[in-house]
């Protein structure tokens, strides 16, 4: 089934050059009372991109999600989506964006079609148009046979698809998703991400998602990495990984501090302690592994090396681990 979205807007076709960016963020800061959640963010998201906001818990990505989805007001700086200012023009913007929340926003006590109906009504869609859009969504997301089932009887993966179908019902040009595949098993996650890909490639929808999941982040065109409310990197996953020098060697040892000093003195390596391991970034990592094992083999519990992952990029940029607490990573 085909889905068409009029990216240029309903009336006057605008030339691509004149089209505003999908998202423009300029010197955006946000604080909850004393705590600064976002600190002077500036970046642009292009139309048709799948853009990921990657960051650990507390990095500010949920705050940014809430601002972009019009749930939190702007404090300082500016942000606009599809040319609508988030400061003054949220009502008109809401009709052009679709939002998928981390916690279900579908009503579990209602059926799939009832959920779609309510959502359509909230966006001013009704009657024959609503029926057609609902049927299209059910077909597109493979939900037709479960249409009259209560949502609470569906699997987690199917519930997420209902969530997507609902958020896409009013044909948004841009979708904002907050950790959308949280709680899904790997197979359901992959399937969900395939749907995101299809929405972008077949309907031209810009996708902006927050995530702390590396697999999700890997599938984005570009990712912005957030740490402590600041944007520490912004590029494609491949280019971000290329920033890390060569291979990543991870060493477990009984006495980390002693080994770190020896590596520093005798191997001219500069290991970082992250989550109870020593990490070294090195070109030709296999040779480094061989040398380390020959010289310090008796002190080592395990040693691995591999190509950098996005998690390595994060550690490379921030000097601390992605999942652990900061105190552990001195």
């Amino acid at each position, binding site marked *: 089934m085909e889905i068409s979205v009029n990216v240029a807007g309903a009336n006057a076709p605008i030339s691509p050059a004149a089209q505003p960016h999908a998202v423009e963020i300029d010197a955006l800061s946000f604080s909850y009372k004393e705590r600064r959640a976002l600190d002077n963010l500036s970046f642009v998201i292009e139309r048709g991109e799948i853009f990921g906001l990657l960051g650990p818990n507390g990095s500010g990505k949920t705050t940014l999600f809430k601002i972009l989805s019009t*749930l939190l007001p702007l404090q300082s700086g500016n942000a606009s989506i599809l040319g609508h200012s988030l400061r003054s023009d949220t009502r008109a913007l809401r*009709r052009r964006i679709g*939002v998928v929340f981390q916690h279900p926003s579908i009503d579990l006590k209602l059926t799939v079609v009832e959920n779609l109906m*309510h959502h359509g009504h909230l966006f001013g869609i*009704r009657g024959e148009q609503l029926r057609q859009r609902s049927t299209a969504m059910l077909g597109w997301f493979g939900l037709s046979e479960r249409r009259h089932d209560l949502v609470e009887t569906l699997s987690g993966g199917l519930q997420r698809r209902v969530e997507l179908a609902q958020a896409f019902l009013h044909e948004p040009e841009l979708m904002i998703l907050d950790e959308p595949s949280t709680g899904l098993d790997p197979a359901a996650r992959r399937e969900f991400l395939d749907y995101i890909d299809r929405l972008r490639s077949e309907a031209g929808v810009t996708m902006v998602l927050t995530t702390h999941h590396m697999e999700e982040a890997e599938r984005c065109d570009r990712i912005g990495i957030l740490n402590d409310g600041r944007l520490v990197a912004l590029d494609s996953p491949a280019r971000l990984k290329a920033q890390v020098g060569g291979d990543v060697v991870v060493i477990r040892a009984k006495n980390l501090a002693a080994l770190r000093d020896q590596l520093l003195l005798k191997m001219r390596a500069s290991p970082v302690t992250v989550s109870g391991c020593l990490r070294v970034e090195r070109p030709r990592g296999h040779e480094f592994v061989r040398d380390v094992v020959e010289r310090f083999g008796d002190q080592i519990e395990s040693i691995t090396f591999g190509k950098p992952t996005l998690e390595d990029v994060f550690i490379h940029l921030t000097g601390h681990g992605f999942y652990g607490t900061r105190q552990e990573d001195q």
Partner: protein
Amino acid sequence: MRHWSALGAFTLWLREITRFRRQRSRVIGSFLQPLVFWLLLGAGLNASFRPAGMPAGINYFQYLYPGFIVLVLLFTAIFSTISTVEDRREGFLQGVLVAPISRQMIVIGQAMGGTTLAWIPSCIFLVLAPLAGIKLTLTAVVVSALIMAIIAFSLTCIGLIIAWRIESTQGFHAIMNLILIPIWLLSGAFWPLSGAPAAVGWLMRLDPLTYGVAALRAALYFGHPSGAANSLPSVIPSTLIASTFALTMYLLAARVASRATSY
């Protein structure tokens, strides 16, 4: 735009009704509990207890009746609004908040939903009035049902004011017990205003629910030989005060909802 918003409010109302229909136990429970209270209290107190200022020709069973209709309204109206607390952070309302519908309209949809949910079981309670020896005329039923809707609307809005302000359902229960039970006790449900000590009388006059209960009592006794022969305000001014109160509560709820941010 306005038209769309009205459709949005309608759909929020419809959702409440659909959910309510699927939870039969909620319907039954919401009116059984006050029914049992009324029977026990009425039976226990009827023989020995006769508060000062009670209208002539009415026994205590009958006197308690309007107050317990209001209790049905109170329970259902308030509890229908609890879901707002969690719904808004991790449920259905998240999606509503990012839809092109104003908070005022969201509150209308929610308030109409809660009002309907409270009104249905209280109407069942109303038609049982002849069992208590209260004669019902058609006028009494129609006017009572209207007044009950006004009371239900104001109580739902009180619930919404609190539900849009606070972050946890525990907090909600605490505030409810602190505010609503006293409001109900002082509303003239248990004893008439005219027989109360001066200080309590003033508290009762300040209690907005007093006027709802008074209007309902007057309407219910339409068919009764003694009429509404007591010191309570008569049905029209009481209904007016109750309506003004309901409107004020709605405006407050809309204001609180408009200012609520989801941190």
